[in-house]
């Protein structure tokens, strides 16, 4: 019984570390994958004119809409 508990704890500690490292690498790779850059930029800009719908791809938004 004692063994099982220790075994579990050891597993938790080591697995947790590898999990952390693996996930960090995977996510960093995804976030900085060069070919995804364009998609991210497009997404970041997409919300700014989402009320116009994509019918007008190059929308000219009034600069000052502080009171809307």
């Amino acid at each position, binding site marked *: *019984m004692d063994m*099982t*508990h220790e075994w*579990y704890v050891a*597993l*938790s500690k080591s*697995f947790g570390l590898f*999990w952390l490292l693996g*996930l960090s690498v995977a996510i960093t790779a995804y976030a900085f994958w060069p070919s995804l850059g364009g998609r991210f930029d497009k997404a970041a800009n997409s919300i700014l004119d989402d009320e116009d719908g994509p019918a007008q791809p190059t929308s000219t938004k009034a600069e000052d809409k502080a009171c809307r």
Partner: protein
Amino acid sequence: MLKTLLKPFARVFEFQAKTHYKMERHSMALTAGIILAAGVGGFVEIAPLFTIDDTVEDVADMRVYTPLEQAGRDIYIREGCYACHSQMIRTLRDEVERYGPYSLAVESKYDHPMLWGSKRTGPDLARVGDKYSDDWQVRHLINPRDLVPQSVMPQYAFLLETPLRTDDLPGRLDALRMVGVPYTDDMIANAANDALGQARPDGDRASGVLDRYGEATAVRAFDGQNDRLTEMDALVAYLQILGNLTDVAQNTQPMAEE
């Protein structure tokens, strides 16, 4: 678990597979990623605690709550006492000197749920049992400011007027047995009688309590009224057992002068 969780969405999956599969991979991958990233962490941290022979001490003299004490515990929960009182003495010198030996895991082994608390607007209650007399507790609950003028605790005078409900006690003990508290059939069948007996030392039901829960069990009229069983009886009985279910803490940590 995952499979059952995802069952309701089977239609969504199917639908996607047929039609919009390519686009939909994104949201499902996202879902899976979130579940993995979050789920594994919690599991790895919590699961070992359930293989616990190591985590919780093995103690022979640990007893379960009597029906009256358990009813008192339920009232303690109902009134939200845990919002201001902790029941967990930490392993810090000043806490041990103020409240008594630090709390051990075994002492809350039968606490479903635990009431360790998170805030001490009032003092810790893990070892408040037998620290004050029944009479003090009753008067303090009726109006705390009669005894401690600076207290900000709410008054609970209505508990003394409210008769304790006992007909649901067997069901409560039975549910507790299902989650792991070792109540016997005998204890469950006699729960209502035992609650009454523990608060009536002269009655004929008192001896049953001692038989079932041990000779050391306190059998008294906790609220000072011998003729009726009130919620005050139950709450005071609970407060007086806090820290007294087992002596292991007192025996293993003889109040050392650090």
